[in-house]
């Protein structure tokens, strides 16, 4: 039997959930025995080369590129997992959801205290750049998500146990102490 294939990505996130995945320490050797990684920032594979069994999504959806990547994951992964608060509810990036987008961009590129050398008062708007969405959306409001792992970040144990349960088909049992939103 071939090994289950895992893909991961970080959308509007801070890579903290990927760091938490790496926090499984030496168990990463066991995981490497159990699974094969495809598209992921961990191995720097940029494009899907085959269909995957599990896709781990970190971060919410804040721009058109995030939507594209998320839909790509949905098409190529049998099971899609929202990892962490940002993927589940937008998280800290969603703090901008109550501020009009124009105000956010003006603060970032024109009027913010750390803005320098922008005499022409340009807000980047090249067509090569992903279009920023009006709000930061939870992943499950864009595509179907099968499993949610809460936490900021979810603990390494929880991510590991979730992966093992998905691979082996065993029921995922999360201890109370590990199930947290923060």
């Amino acid at each position, binding site marked *: 039997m071939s090994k289950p294939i895992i893909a991961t990505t970080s959308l509007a996130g801070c890579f903290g959930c990927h760091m938490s995945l790496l926090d499984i320490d030496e168990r990463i050797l066991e995981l490497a025995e159990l699974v094969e990684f495809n598209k992921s920032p961990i191995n720097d594979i940029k494009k899907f080369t085959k269909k995957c069994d599990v896709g781990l999504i970190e971060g919410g959806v804040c721009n058109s590129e995030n939507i594209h990547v998320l839909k790509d994951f949905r098409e190529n992964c049998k099971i899609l997992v929202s990892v962490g608060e940002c993927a589940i*509810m937008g998280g800290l990036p969603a703090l901008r*959801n109550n501020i009009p987008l124009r105000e956010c961009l003006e603060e970032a590129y024109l009027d913010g205290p750390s803005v320098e050398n922008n005499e022409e008062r340009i807000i980047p708007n090249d067509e090569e750049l992903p279009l920023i969405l009006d*709000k930061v959306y939870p992943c499950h409001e864009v595509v179907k998500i099968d499993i949610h792992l809460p936490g900021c970040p979810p603990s390494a144990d929880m991510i590991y146990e979730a992966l093992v349960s998905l691979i082996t088909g065993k029921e995922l049992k*999360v201890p109370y102490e590990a199930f947290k939103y*923060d």
Partner: protein
Amino acid sequence: MSKVLNFTIDGVICMAEKGQTILNAATANKIYIPTLCNLPGLKPRGSCRVCNVKVNGKFLTACTTPVAEGMEIENNSEDIIDIRKSIIELLLVEGNHYCPYCEKSGNCDLQAIAYKYNIPAPRFPYQFPDRDIEATNGKLLKDHNRCILCKRCIRGIKDEDGKSIFAFKRRGHKVIINIDTRLSANMTDEMAQEAMDICPVGAIIKKEIGFKVPIGERKYDKEPIGSDIEEIKATTI
């Protein structure tokens, strides 16, 4: 001694005094019924509906319904838990609850009940309402993003004359909690702490001190809400 009433919760035989509410009687019989708006010592309001139980086939709020002789109460059946979960999920999407940076995280009743019922993500779409933060009061910070309008602060925090320091302002969906400037002028640090503690969420935050208790030692870090009431403690979900 007042008359003793016999009733059952999920088939467990319980006893109550006449006039006792289902919630108080359940607590006395070491059975936990979750609630957000109720607080021992305050007149029950029945507004959050989280304490819904099924009595003889009807849904009633346990905090406002007195026990009657022979009542058969369901507290943990599937439909009740689904109703409670849906209420918690509605509250989570109705406000802006950013647990990762909230000072009340770990000590928050709303979050603790969501943990107890193992809610990984709400079934409803997030509303991201536009709400304010007010820091005009000297001792307290109000974050309307997190307020669930339970009225616990209004009912529980009073000055020496029995006047409420908190009040509702505006009407309908625009209603918010407000602090009386005059009455709160002489607020002590203890009262400010009491106001923060009485809030089941993080809508009232005491200024100048924060994140004092480290992660792992907070109220609901190790044991689910209600563990102090229940005889059989739940260790896993």
